[in-house]
């Protein structure tokens, strides 16, 4: 069953393109990475999903409910952390859980306290005295305390230290394991690489890739560094088709491997090499390619 679905979702800001014909479908228990550079349309998509913006064309639904017309109803089962989080300056975690709990009609105190302990957030500090990281933690707690079926996180790690980023990743994994769905927007690959099952890449308002992370990994090239034993063997080398030379510097040569590692190992065993280093698949290069080399949209 799909938890979130968009069909040809389009929204422009006057002449400026917001998003164009975005199609997404996310199932239950999935952690979905939504990647793109700044200004690509990630936040616009999220604002359409949250019912803040009315689509110019197409439609979006969450849990079968229309994101614009039934926005209030669907948010019972949605937790949302805005990209540029602003909280009321008078709020403390305690007051926030009390007020938000009253609005949601559930007691969020215990769940909120547990999350506050996990994220190491003091309960009675006012927002106006909080650091950016603390505010972000409070935003996360408010988004997660009611254990929503869909958690929408717009660049959630900004302001968090590495330990808290890891804690967030753990929380997200736990939610997904319990069947909850997470929509994780980010502009950095490393954040979603270890967390998401599937990734969509958005560029200039259009989805240019929507694939499982494993598929992308399979497509990614490995970086291979060869060090030849002597100049003669370096000069006499016959390069196989799966290896592309990127850079040569004397006996040292940096290449990119296309495809699996077995043919490389077999080929290398017949060469006179002093050293060989094979790095893991470089997803970053795939994303850079998507970001940079796509032809301009008309």
């Amino acid at each position, binding site marked *: 069953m799909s938890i979130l679905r968009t069909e040809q979702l389009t929204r422009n800001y006057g002449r400026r393109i917001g998003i164009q014909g975005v199609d997404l479908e996310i199932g239950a228990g999935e952690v979905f990475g939504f990647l793109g550079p700044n200004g690509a349309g990630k936040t616009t998509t999220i604002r359409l999903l949250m019912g803040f913006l009315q689509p110019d064309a197409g439609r979006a639904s969450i849990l079968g409910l229309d994101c614009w017309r039934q926005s209030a109803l*669907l948010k019972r089962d949605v937790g949302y952390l805005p990209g540029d*989080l602003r909280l*009321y300056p008078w709020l403390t975690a305690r007051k926030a859980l009390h007020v938000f709990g009253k*609005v*949601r009609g559930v007691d969020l105190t215990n769940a909120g306290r547990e999350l506050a302990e996990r994220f190491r957030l003091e309960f009675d500090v006012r927002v106006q005295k909080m650091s950016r990281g603390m505010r972000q933690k409070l935003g996360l707690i408010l988004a997660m305390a009611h254990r929503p079926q869909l958690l929408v996180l717009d660049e959630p790690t900004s302001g968090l230290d590495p330990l808290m980023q890891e804690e967030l990743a753990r929380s997200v994994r736990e939610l997904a394991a319990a069947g909850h769905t997470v929509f994780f927007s980010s502009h950095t690959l490393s954040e979603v690489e270890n967390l998401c099952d599937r990734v969509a890449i958005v560029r200039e308002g259009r989805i240019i890739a929507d694939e499982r992370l494993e598929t992308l990994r399979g497509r990614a090239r490995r970086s291979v560094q060869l060090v030849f034993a002597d100049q003669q063997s370096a000069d006499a080398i016959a390069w196989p088709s799966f290896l592309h030379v990127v850079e040569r510097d004397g006996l040292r040569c940096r290449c990119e491997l296309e495809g699996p590692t077995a043919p490389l190992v077999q080929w290398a065993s017949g060469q006179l090499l002093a050293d060989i280093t094979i790095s893991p698949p470089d997803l970053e290069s795939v994303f850079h390619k998507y970001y940079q080399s796509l032809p301009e949209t008309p």
Partner: protein
Amino acid sequence: MRGLWLKTWYEVWLMTLLFGCALLGFSALLTYVIPRMQEGMLEIIERMPFVKPFFTAMLGTELGDQINARMLQAFLWVHPTILALVWAHAIVFCTRLPAGEIDRGTIDVLLGLPVSRRAVYYGEVIAWLVAGLVILLLGFAGHCLTAGSTPAPMRPPLSREMLVLGNLYCVYLAVGGLAFFVSSLSDRRGRAMAVAFAIVLSSFLLNFVAQFWAPARKFACLGVMEYYRPAQILQSNVLPTADVAILLSVAAVAVVLGGEVAARRSICTV
């Protein structure tokens, strides 16, 4: 809805208390001072007859040849300080949503909750109605504090004063309703406040201009003071129902229109 009111209460109690205390203080002071200025006022009007239209515009009634004691009491309810405080509270309160929430970026968190925009909006409207009542009652309490120092013949009956208070509340509602409507069209609170204030001030000035310049009289009906008649009420003990109905209609139409705009518009904080 209770959660929304709780949030609004946390945000507005101090502001409302401050406005209420200011009204209490000023109305107490003016109630004490105004009876002691009667002779001075009559002298001013005698020496400078052009001042009379100003008073007429403010009091919403013709002064005639003499300012009597009752009419003098009406000056409390049209004093610029009192009116400025009442209007300022209405404008400051009613531009909090949606313009204020969008401006400070908190609307994302607010609308991330399972509440409709209409519920958020009308929750705020109800809180505003109560807050307006509170500040006006505090102002009236201030008046009562020093009313004992006023000579007995000058003291209007309580029932007439309550009618004036009711008329003033209707003015408050009309100004607030207008501010809600302007706020619902805006993303910036400062701009919404400036526009609402400019409209109210223009309508206030229109009343004065109409006293001196005949062509402006055609548009006097657009002035808010045209429908606020404390002197007439204090003299006749009759609520100007037509004026009150107009003020309430303006408030209701503006609030409902504002609510519809707020519910249907796209909200962009970036």
